[in-house]
């Protein structure tokens, strides 16, 4: 969680929140072209990260031990 800057380490929820922010910002339509493209690229990258994380998720069950 400390390395949120790194793409690989970004939590799904953080990525999703960022993505939602970007989509909202883009939809306002006030950004100049260059900024739009920059945000767009970032957004698409976040989409990819989110989707990958979703698709990679797998059910696991661990048992909490040595706590009694």
């Amino acid at each position, binding site marked *: 969680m400390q390395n949120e800057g790194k793409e690989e380490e970004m939590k799904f929820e953080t990525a999703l929140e960022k993505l939602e922010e970007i989509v909202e910002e883009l939809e306002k*339509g006030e950004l100049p072209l260059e900024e739009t493209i920059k945000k767009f690229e970032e957004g698409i990258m976040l989409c990819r990260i989110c989707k990958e994380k979703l698709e990679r*998720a797998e059910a696991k069950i661990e048992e909490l031990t040595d706590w009694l």
Partner: protein
Amino acid sequence: MLKNKIYSVWEISEQIKKAIEKEEFCNLWIEGEISNFREAIGNYFFDLKDEKAIIKCVMFSPSLPFTPKNGMKVIIKGDIRVYEKRGYYQVYVQDIKVGGIGELFMKFIELKEKLQKEGIFDEKFKRPLPKTPSKIGVVTSPNGSAIKDIQKVISRRFPVTIVLAPVRVQGEGSAEEIERAIKALNSRKDIELIIVGRGGGSWEDLWAFNDERVARAIFESRIPVISAVGHETDFTIADFVADRRAPTPSAAGEIAVPDREEMIKMIENYAMRMIKIARGKIDFYREISERIMKRRAFSYPFEIIYDKIECYKKGCENLNKAIDKFLEDKKTKIRFIEENLRAMNPYKVLERGYSICFRLRDNKLFSSVDDAEVGENIKIVVKDGEAICRMKEKKKK
């Protein structure tokens, strides 16, 4: 009520109904013994009685873990309402707790009131649940139905890691185990949500979840807690303290994680929206730049230069022509003047046989007999020389 009015049966029944069906007769717990029990089209009808009184009860679409029987000691929960068609009041039962649980039940009520006063159930303490927890701690029995249900729902909706804290969920020591499990999960850094619960059972079976230690452990939990105890109709202290009550363990699974397919669709939708916006923006600017590019300066940039060169060349040419013409004019004029001059040269006539005479004394033109005297010398100029002659006589015409 009006003393000087004659009421119809319906009118007076309506008044009684109004008088009875008030908030104070709602959600009451009543203890008694079931008698005259019968079941009709899935609904229960019975009387609840004690030594001194009897009250009619009806339970529509009951969902109980047992079927009530005559002679059963129960605590029922319900509202009292008037059934005017039959002229009696009855309890519309929502829930029935079975058995000699009067004492436990009172403990439950007491603890609930105590904790309520402390504010432990207050809405302000409810923490929001993470939207997509990556690790979920589950406090329940490793052999019960709850863990199976939770696991099934979670792996179907959004597979994540479940950390099971195996505990006993009923019997001696179960409350302490649940308490310790909640604390142990809290000491880990990776757990984002806790589900505490168990499958259905009798009132006594669920008792651990009415324990004060469990309630406080849930309250103190740093990690948000979903309670999932028994069936839809079962309410425990844990449910009141938890950040969210799930009616069943399966429902807890549904609450805990979003649906993966829906999330993927949502993200794809975000991507589509962004592509649409970016494309729109690019098209907009492309159109502008195309409009600019269509202007002559950009589409035929050299033509303008060629035009200028052409213009310059033409200018030079015109200038040269003008100069030439000017010179030509001047030449013609000079030639004309020369010719004129030549034509006017008086000596020119000498060639044709004429001569010119001058007075010798002063070289003045001799063109009249008056110009010279008799005896005076006259110079005659002819084409190839001159002759000096003396005038002999003069005759005037």
